[in-house]
């Protein structure tokens, strides 16, 4: 089963520290892979914040051979992107299990000049399109190019093997790369065949989630999302990818608050909604989104572009997650020992394990954790 760890802190920290915390949860996983997603990036040799005002997109992925890298360079140049920074991982290839790896790229690009006239929606769609085009290009060339994310202030690393080993092999322990939010997941998906794209965290247009457990409602949800014909709703080599796409749909497309996510994936029962102040609206929402109801057990941990982090459980809550921390520094993990390992000096009595109706939200200010319940009034009364 997947082990999940998320740490968010006001002061950037090395992702390696989260990998060491993952070791605490090692009993539960088979060491088959690692997925890392970083936000609030801090490079030792490039001042991303000042140079790009957090606007330049960062491309994360793997070129599996020289030819793929050349093609990537050419494509990006043709599309009008200008390379501003290329983070060189201090890679020790001998420690990497897979042999077809040429370059792990983490590159900052300046967007094409004519985008100056684009509105935000347009820019976001173009960034998605670029990532999908690169992915397609890789797939058309025998899978020699893998593109995980292309988005401002987001870096993604995915690889097969034991998480700590991968961290060492990529030199993540050299403190040259830090972040304020790190999402880590320690397993390759083994339900549907090993594939780098099937590894959590899943990312689309700024929203990211990772999940443990099995979503038995996967096929109908996948069919629904695929039927929307939205460019980014592809892949589904993992049953957990739908969690990221549902969040994207609710948060980015329907433009509803984060709290709505829980009402969509695990709606309250009719008897409960009959007593809810916005019950009529929420019943309607449940009806129109009923194909997105998940069937866990799952613990979903996610993050949004503004560095908000959250955790939700499925209704059955057979995969309890834990959130703990202190002002300025919070951790979420699928196992309590993971939280211990990430933030040992916290008040453990304030740790919280969300119940089936809860969404735990750590807002960008990281001052406190917000425990939100589905029974609370819906946060956007004008919609309801």
């Amino acid at each position, binding site marked *: 089963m997947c082990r999940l760890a998320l740490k968010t802190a006001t002061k950037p920290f090395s992702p390696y520290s989260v990998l060491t915390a993952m070791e605490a949860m090692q009993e539960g996983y088979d060491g088959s892979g690692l997925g890392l997603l970083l936000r609030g990036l801090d490079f030792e040799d490039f001042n991303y914040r000042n140079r790009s005002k957090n606007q330049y997109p960062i491309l994360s992925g793997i070129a599996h051979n020289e030819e793929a890298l050349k093609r990537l360079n050419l494509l990006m140049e043709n599309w009008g992107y200008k390379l501003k920074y290329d983070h060189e991982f201090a890679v020790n290839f001998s420690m990497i299990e897979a042999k077809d790896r040429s370059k792990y790229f983490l590159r900052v690009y300046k967007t094409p000049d004519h985008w100056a006239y684009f509105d935000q929606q347009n820019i976001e769609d173009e960034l998605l399109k670029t990532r999908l085009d690169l992915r397609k290009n890789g797939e058309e060339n025998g899978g020699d190019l893998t593109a995980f994310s292309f988005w401002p202030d987001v870096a993604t690393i995915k690889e097969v093997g034991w998480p700590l080993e991968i961290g060492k092999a990529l030199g993540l322990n050299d403190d040259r790369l830090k972040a304020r939010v790190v999402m880590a997941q320690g397993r390759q998906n083994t339900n549907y065949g090993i594939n780098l794209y099937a590894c959590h965290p899943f990312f689309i247009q700024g929203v990211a989630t990772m999940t443990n457990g099995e979503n038995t*409602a996967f096929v109908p949800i996948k069919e629904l999302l695929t039927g*929307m014909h939205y460019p980014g709703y592809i892949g589904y080599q993992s049953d957990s990818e739908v969690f990221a796409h549902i969040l994207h749909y609710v948060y980015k497309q*329907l433009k509803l608050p984060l709290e709505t996510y829980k009402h969509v994936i695990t709606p309250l029962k009719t008897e409960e909604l009959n007593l809810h102040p916005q019950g009529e609206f929420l019943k309607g929402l449940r009806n129109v989104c*009923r194909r997105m109801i998940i069937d866990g057990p799952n613990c979903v941990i996610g993050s949004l572009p503004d560095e908000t982090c959250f955790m939700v459980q499925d209704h059955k809550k057979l995969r309890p997650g834990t959130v703990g921390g202190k002002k300025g520094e919070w951790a979420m993990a699928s196992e309590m020992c993971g939280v211990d390992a990430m933030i040992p000096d916290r008040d453990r009595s304030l740790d919280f394990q969300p119940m089936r109706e809860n969404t735990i939200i750590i807002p960008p200010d990281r001052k406190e954790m917000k425990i939100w319940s589905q029974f609370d009034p819906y946060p956007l009364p004008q919609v309801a």
Partner: protein
Amino acid sequence: MVSIRSIPSTPSSLTHLDLQWIIKHREDRCTLCGRCTTVCPKEAIFLTYRRQRMPKLDILKKKRSSEYRTFTGIRQRTEPANRCIGCGMCATVCPNEAIGPEPNPNDPRVRLLHNDKGEAWKRGGRRNFRGSLLDRIMFNRISMLTDPALDAGRHEFQLNTLLGRVLSPEEFLHRQATGEWIPPVREIFPFIIGSMSFGALSPNMWLGLLQGVAYCNEVLGIPVVMATGEGGCPPWVLRSPYLKYIILQIASGYFGWDEIIRAIPDMQCDPAAIEIKYGQGAKPGDGGLLMWFKVSKLIARLRGVPEGVDLPSPPVHQTLYSIEESVMKMIQSLSMAWGFRVPVYPKISGSTSAKSVLNNLVRNPYASALMIDGVDGGTGAAYNVSMDATGHPIASNLRECYLDLVAQGKQNEIPIFAAGGIGKNGNVTQNGLALIMLGASGVHMGKYIMQSAAGCLGSEQNRCNVCNLGICPKGITSQNPKLYRRLDPDQVAERVADTFMAIRTEMRKTLAPLGRSQSLPIGMSDAIGIDDADAAERLQIKYIC
């Protein structure tokens, strides 16, 4: 040439060995009480005197002779009109287990003579075919090691489905914000009592069903709904708070709709939905048919017709010029009658043209669902050839329609309900869930409910199947008080509750190992497989062996 008459044989003469059911009578047990002959709905048996030779041998006189004894025995009539239908009522009433019908293992010639006086064979029941593809579908995506299987007894399961047009989330939010009309949606149990008319069913049967449905809803918390067939609804039901459990059907004869429309101002609640019947799986292309002997005083009043006349409904609605106009107009008119608060949907017979109907409904913002009735569905009266050979099996028809919606991303918007042979061999939950996982939002079952809740004797071995004649030996499909008083409505209601409680338990027992509990697994095609490669390919599910 003049035929000889010494051998009593005509082209249509039969012996008891030519009949489908042969009465076995044990003289040694019979007390000649006469109950069997009295109860037989076809008068297929009669008490008669018989003569038997008793061989006599007088050894001392070295003489052989015969003696004869006369006894009273049971004899089976061989005229096609009085053929035994295998209902077994004789066995039911016999105090000594002395009599009962047995299926004729040979080739019963009677089937060649079901055309007396040029009348083609009409009957009730289902297609006389005992096989069922749905029985072969197994649930095999078991969550045991990958994730904990659920406890069917103690876990909470959400088993209900939605009947009604569901908007896309974007459209819903838009209409919510602007205060526009949001189509009505009902949350119901996915096993629905399919349309059987008040006319086809006896008053006691109807009352029992309704009592059972009300009990399921109000005591057991199972939101079961039942559909009327064509022919209206008793006036006291229309004005009762139980109307919310009823789907009112309007069919091509529009029988009973005067009464319904007049009752609208007095209704305490809205009906569950309105079903517009365009076709029926058992007899596609035929309208309803209520024979004169079932048109009693009550039925005549409900339908607004004289007593004792045949009531054949036309094969199509008189308004049907094209699907665009007629379906849209009817759906809109009926929606308007209840202030757009009641879902209105059409029912069609399974057909290769079902997809075009569906696509038309997708574009009709008032259409609430589509109900497809497969060839294995039952009926109270139809020509045998319609039942046995006309129509489309439900599984592939439904699957095709569902996948068509999936390709358009509309599978959440128009729910498809399926019917036709659900529980044909008793496996009602298995059959229903198989269809749900193929894409149905719910299933209708009529014949199964008659069998399970009222003890209907009909079978696909052509047992009984005389619903069309008004002689139902159990009193289920008769308007003759002498017959329907055999049926106690309270007992029917109890059996309805028993049936739905068992279905609910079986649903949980099926869904628990699949790890599903939070929503009805509509379209969960990865969970099912079938041991037939061609069927698997057609249905786009796994082939298992």
